[in-house]
């Protein structure tokens, strides 16, 4: 194993270092300022995220060959890099939404927790060692438990935090059990070595299947795939809206990052089993998510179920188990991240203005604030997979992956589900555009941070939907480097 | 001048449309201008047609004044016009009757612009059928004429006009469906719609199958599709039920054209398409056709006799008279190639012309009395001769022409038909003669109920005599009836050559 010079190494883990520094800065400033200038903390977190992304793009780009650090525990490749950028983007946008938010602003540690959780996620995307994966997993999760229950005066929020914690702890225990079995039978904690051993047939098939099932539990929880999705609607509904947005996007993407790596690196020998398992998860998630979303009255619950269904759609790409499938998954995740963040952003903005998250509260929005309505329109259509928005490309690629892998039936299931999904998205749009409300003449209160976040998201949604090429290239590079030994 | 001679038929065909378009730009309020403009527009084709007649060479074979241009090259259909003796007579009939009908319509006061517009379009539709030498084009004009007629009946007709108009168009369109399907099939099988070519190709086609049926069967079906379409138009019993309603409800001028020209379209279809395209089938089924013709004569006459409504009576008389046309055609089909066939065909064509004149005249005269009394109930008339002597005389004359009194037009044509058909279908012809007897009966009955007997006191002193305009409408018809009755040779000259050729061409297939 070659040794990497320290300077190089530091440069390569620049995103993580940057986040660490950012967390420290935020914590310090919070202590100094107390709650008086909480506005700035959000901007600083967002700005810091932007700086991290910029610097990483300039200096920390991975080479064509993956770089192994710390005795192979960390593997810096395009896959990880794209995911890390994605998480930091999600963090920055979430920070903007959290700015000037009552209940959050008084407690500056919010942003610190957010950044630390993001740090855990970036690690999840780049470590290839079972122990490290678990550590990263928990680093990402624990701050999120706190964030979900952040509004301590709000019973629902607290309940949501506790629920999330309980579910998370349970599933991560199951996953850990799977890890221990893998280690016990192969004697290695390195994913690539385990994969090599499995391929060589050194593990009885039955056991391999068992480990696969156990490990999947953890990931399925993280990506909120059925049947481990129960927590999502309650947690999303109770948690602060900005946190819910973060949970449904960055956190979900982190789950996918690990899932893809484990899937393709550890279990290539069991590909048919994995395919079946993931496809089953995909179908279950899509069907359950969409069916339940159909008659939701609360927009946050609706988005929660929709995000379960979206997870199912993304899993189609993973089930294809191909280069193209991984590319599709990554592209879909990018599209989904910006789209869903904006969706929760709008929910937060409207929720604060009307004091309700019921769908009926959206009546008259198009008259009250045509701009916000337009953003919601773009976002929901993107979720529905309609051009010229990002979701269309994601949908196209994911279905394409299924067709390419001779799983057209899965694509057809996806088709049926996307129709059902469009139904409830349109239902929301109907309320927004058609229904009238008494308060529709009052303008909507909108801070500059929210505006920036929303507009930024929507621009990305359109760019990802029209100017596909550069993002696609990244995604396909990331996919290519995932399986290179 | 070249333009005029080379495109004479096109000019005749489309000047009414041009006139109609011009009408659109005239002020709707100025009814007088509209009327005279329409009359002028209908006189232009009349003048042109006279020129056509003058230049027509009755001794030449085939079609004259032929024009041919690509129309719908994608499906091998062309704009192909031409006239022979039969179509020339029909064109003349049309261009004579149309101005008279326009003149008769001067009493229309409601939406005159639309009325005249439709009337002129109708003229083009009728002329197009007579001039077309392309099967598709024939069908186009065949249907084009329907629409104006439908609206003329439905908008300016009597009390039950909607029912009558719908019945008229549904019967005719329904009948045309078979024609349409058969036309499509012929086009597909033969690869052309040009009639001059089809006359050669289609009867010769004996091999191959379609829909699993042998060609002979297919052709028999297509033959009946054609026959039914034309039989409805003629109309032949039992397809006639639309006619009394349509005629009765149509405005006067509409009835004139309907009886005078539109019915001839059906008979013309038999002559132009059925006989040349289906010589074998025609001969095979001629007996049926003759029987239907005879039945039309008898039932038409009986039906007329039973009417109390003057206009309905005249309408039924059309069925009666058109039966002779059918009988003549049937005889010609059966006795193909013989002298009898030629005589019968001559009679049929001449009967088309004479019936056109007399029926138009009769309907006009019914209209004249209706405008004064607002009733058509025969029982309410009576003794009108004394009130309106001129009208009485004219009615008497026209009715006699219709009856077939020797010396007037109807006699010559019906005689020719009977003469030609007798050796071929003796029984049917004999029965027709009985029908002719009833013809006399109903006409005399009508004359008696209108002109003679006690005067209904309601009308005393209230019925003005025929006006000059009305006189101008009826006079040409009477003159023509008389001329054709006394000296039919000028018309038969034109017809004879053509019908001989048709008969000869048919006989070549045996």
């Amino acid at each position: 194993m070659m040794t990497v010079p320290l300077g190089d190494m530091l440069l390569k883990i620049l995103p993580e270092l940057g986040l660490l520094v950012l967390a420290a800065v935020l914590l310090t400033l919070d202590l100094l300022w107390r709650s008086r200038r909480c506005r700035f903390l959000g901007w600083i977190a967002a700005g810091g995220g932007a700086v991290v992304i910029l610097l990483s793009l300039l200096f920390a780009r991975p080479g064509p060959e993956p770089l192994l650090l710390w005795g192979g525990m960390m593997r810096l490749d395009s896959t990880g890099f794209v995911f890390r950028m994605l998480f930091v983007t999600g963090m920055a946008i979430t920070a903007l939404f959290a700015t000037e938010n009552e209940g959050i602003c008084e407690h500056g540690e919010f942003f610190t927790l957010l950044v630390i959780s993001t740090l855990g996620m970036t690690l999840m995307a780049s470590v290839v060692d079972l122990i490290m994966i678990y550590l990263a997993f928990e680093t990402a999760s624990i701050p999120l438990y706190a964030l979900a229950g952040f509004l301590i005066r709000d019973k629902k929020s607290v309940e949501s935090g506790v629920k999330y914690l309980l579910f998370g702890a349970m599933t991560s225990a199951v996953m850990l059990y799977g890890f221990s079995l893998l280690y016990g039978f192969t004697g290695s904690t390195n994913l690539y070595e385990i994969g090599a051993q499995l391929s060589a047939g050194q593990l009885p098939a039955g056991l391999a299947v068992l480990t696969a099932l156990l490990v999947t539990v953890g990931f399925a929880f993280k990506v909120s795939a059925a049947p481990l999705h129960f927590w999502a609607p309650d947690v999303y509904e109770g948690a602060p809206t900005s946190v819910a947005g973060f949970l449904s996007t960055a956190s979900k993407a982190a789950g996918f990052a690990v899932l893809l790596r484990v899937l393709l690196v550890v279990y290539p020998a069991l590909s048919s089993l994995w395919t079946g398992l993931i496809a089953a998860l995909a179908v279950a998630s899509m069907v359950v998510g969409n069916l339940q979303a159909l008659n939701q009255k609360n927009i946050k619950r609706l988005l929660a179920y929709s995000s379960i269904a979206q997870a199912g759609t993304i899993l189609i790409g993973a089930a294809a188990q191909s280069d193209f499938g991984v590319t599709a998954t990554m592209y879909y995740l990018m599209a989904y991240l910006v789209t869903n963040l904006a969706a929760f952003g709008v929910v937060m903005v409207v929720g604060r203005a009307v004091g309700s998250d019921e769908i009926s509260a959206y009546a008259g929005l198009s008259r009250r604030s045509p701009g916000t309505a337009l953003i919601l329109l773009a976002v929901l259509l993107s979720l529905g997979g309609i051009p010229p928005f990002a979701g269309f490309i994601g949908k196209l690629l994911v279905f394409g992956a299924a067709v390419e892998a001779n799983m057209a039936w899965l694509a057809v299931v996806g088709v049926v589900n996307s129709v059902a999904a469009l139904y409830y998205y349109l239902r929301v749009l109907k309320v927004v555009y058609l229904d009238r409300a008494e308060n529709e003449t009052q303008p909507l209160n909108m801070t500059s941070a929210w505006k920036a976040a929303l507009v930024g998201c929507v621009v990305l949604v359109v760019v990802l939907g029209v100017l596909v090429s550069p993002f696609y290239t990244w995604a396909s590079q990331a996919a290519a480097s995932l399986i290179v030994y | 001048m070249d333009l005029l001679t080379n495109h004479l038929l096109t000019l005749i065909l489309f000047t009414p449309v041009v006139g109609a378009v011009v009408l659109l730009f005239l002020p709707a309020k100025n009814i007088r201008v509209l009327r005279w403009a329409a009359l002028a527009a209908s006189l232009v084709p009349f003048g042109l047609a006279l020129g056509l007649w003058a230049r027509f060479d009755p001794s030449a074979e085939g079609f004259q004044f032929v024009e041919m241009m690509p129309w719908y090259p994608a499906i091998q259909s062309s704009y192909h016009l031409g006239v022979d003796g039969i179509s020339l007579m029909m064109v003349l009939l049309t261009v004579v009757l149309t101005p008279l009908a326009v003149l008769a319509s001067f009493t229309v006061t409601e939406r005159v612009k639309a009325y005249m517009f439709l009337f002129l379009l109708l003229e083009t539709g009728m002329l197009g059928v007579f001039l077309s030498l392309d099967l598709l084009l024939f069908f186009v004009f065949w249907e084009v004429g329907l629409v104006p007629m439908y609206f003329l009946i439905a908008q300016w007709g009597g009390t039950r006009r909607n029912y009558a108009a719908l019945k008229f168009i549904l019967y005719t369109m329904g009948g045309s469906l078979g024609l349409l399907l058969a036309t499509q099939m012929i086009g597909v099988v033969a690869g052309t719609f040009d009639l001059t070519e089809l006359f050669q190709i289609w009867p010769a086609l004996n091999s191959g199958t379609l829909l699993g049926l042998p060609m002979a069967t297919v052709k028999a079906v297509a033959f009946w599709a054609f026959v039914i379409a034309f039989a409805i138009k003629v109309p032949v019993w039992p397809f006639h039920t639309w006619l009394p309603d349509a005629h009765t409800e149509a405005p006067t001028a509409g009835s004139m054209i309907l009886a005078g020209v539109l019915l001839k379209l059906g008979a013309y279809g038999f002559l132009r398409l059925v006989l040349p395209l289906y010589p074998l089938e025609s001969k095979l089924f001629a007996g049926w056709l003759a029987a239907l013709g005879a039945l039309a004569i008898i039932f038409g006459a009986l039906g007329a006799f039973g009417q109390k409504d003057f206009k309905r009576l005249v309408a039924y008389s059309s069925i009666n008279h058109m039966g002779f046309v059918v009988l003549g055609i049937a005889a010609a089909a059966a006795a193909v190639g013989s002298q009898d066939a030629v005589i019968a065909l001559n009679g049929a064509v001449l009967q088309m012309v004479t019936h056109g004149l007399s029926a138009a005249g009769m309907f006009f005269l019914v209209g004249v009395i209706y405008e004064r009394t607002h009733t058509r109930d025969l029982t309410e008339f009576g003794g009108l001769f004394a009130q309106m002597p001129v009208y009485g005389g004219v009615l008497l004359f026209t009715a006699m022409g219709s009856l077939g009194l020797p010396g007037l037009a109807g006699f010559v044509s019906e005689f020719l038909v009977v003469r030609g058909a007798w050796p071929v279908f003796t029984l049917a012809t004999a029965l027709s003669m009985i029908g002719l007897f009833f013809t006399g009966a109903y006409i005399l009955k009508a004359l008696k109920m209108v002109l003679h007997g006690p005067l209904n006191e309601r009308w005393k002193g209230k019925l003005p005599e025929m006006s000059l305009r009305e006189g101008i409408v009826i006079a040409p018809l009477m003159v023509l009836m008389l001329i054709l009755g006394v000296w039919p040779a000028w018309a038969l000259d034109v017809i004879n050559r053509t019908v001989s050729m048709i008969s000869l061409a048919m006989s070549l297939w045996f």
Partner: protein
Amino acid sequence: MQFPILSVLIFIPLLAGIVLLMVPAQRKDWIRGIALGSAAVVLVLSVAVYALYDVAQAGYQFVETAPWVPALGIQYHVGVDGLSLPLILLSGLVVFTGVLVSWHVDERPREFFSYLMFLGSSVLGVFASLDLFQLFFFFELAVFPKYLMIILWGSPKTREYGGMKLTLFLFAGSVLALVGALAIYFGSGLRTFDMLVLEKAGFPIAFQQLWFPFLFLGFGVLSGIFPFHSWAPDGHVAAPTAVSMLLAGVEMKVGAFAALRVAIMLLPDGARFWAPAVLVLATINVVYGALIALIQSDFKYVIGFSSVSHMGLVLIGFACLNHDSLLGAGMQMFSHGIMTALFFSVVGMVYDRTHTRELSQLGGLVQKMPWAAVGFIIAGLVSMGMPGFSGFVAEFPIFMGAWRTAPLVAIIAILGVVVTAGYILLVVRRVFFGELPKQFQNIPDITWMDKLAIGLLAAFMIGLGWFPSLMTSVLQPGVQNILGLLGG
């Protein structure tokens, strides 16, 4: 470099749509002016494209390409041939007349005209697309304008139901077709969405037979193929006038066109295999649609079902797969487009003035709005396939084609024509003639803009009816191209 006329044509309405959204809502004059101006430009350009197309040279013309996503083999690729050309013209006409008859939309005109422009851009984009991805992109671009326009400006009773049903049906169809398109993309092994390349890919027969139904039915939903037609009447009826015009007039052709361009032209062997099944469905369309139209009591539903019936003829034309039938289908797409646009525009004018669409409550309107009556009658005659109007010259070749391939279909489908005559005459009589109800004694005549729209559409119907070569000469090279792909 030539003037990028097609791109300008596609993007002018898109741009206008965006600009409109930025105009202050209260400047209604500006809004209407921008809408009419851009629609006029679209009309002029579409006529120009039609006129400038070089028939002698044939093939795809005005072609433009630009890289889009090279890694996926996606490019921006537009061009027109004989088949798409009439449809481009149709779109231009209907967009323009749609703006004219919507002049008095007073409820949020900004959004209305903006969405209308998006819709126009979408259909033009589909017709000009030579890239499969791009075709889908524009195809689905229409989803939200359609939905929003129906629910916002549609008829209050059914708009939510009709709009949702329409959107979901069409979306389902297009996503299904998308799966088929992806199969073509991967199955060809060429990794390109360029249809001109894919045409020559030579897919195995089994592959074509498997995937043809996905594409044909997927797009066919939008063309109203039985049994997936039920969105059409509901959607058309629920939609506001201009949208009904565009939906029935142009969008249904988008479906048919895409089914032809993608399903039949890329998978010709699949088309041959499935043609009998399509023929059966399409024949049902023709007869069933007409019969159902006959028993409607709602003015607009009659027209809605008549579209189902007439689109069946287009599909018959496709499925017969011969020169005459394809030519007729091409004509019928255009003819039905302008005809149904005229129908719906008149229905809208009547409804705006009487506020009812119940046939039993209408009558005698010819006295109040003669232009509308004449326009409706002309469209009705086109619908009946009356010679002298565009419907005849379009339907006749379809029937001839049917005689060549499936004579029985010709005989059965003609029934639809009879029934059509019946319901058209009934409707004309009930709405425009007879007694004028008292409450309508004072309704105003239609505006000169409405008359302009009616006159424009009617002129095309009559002109085409007498001079069919004006369109067949353009269509024929396109049809030859398809026949070439079908192998003679």
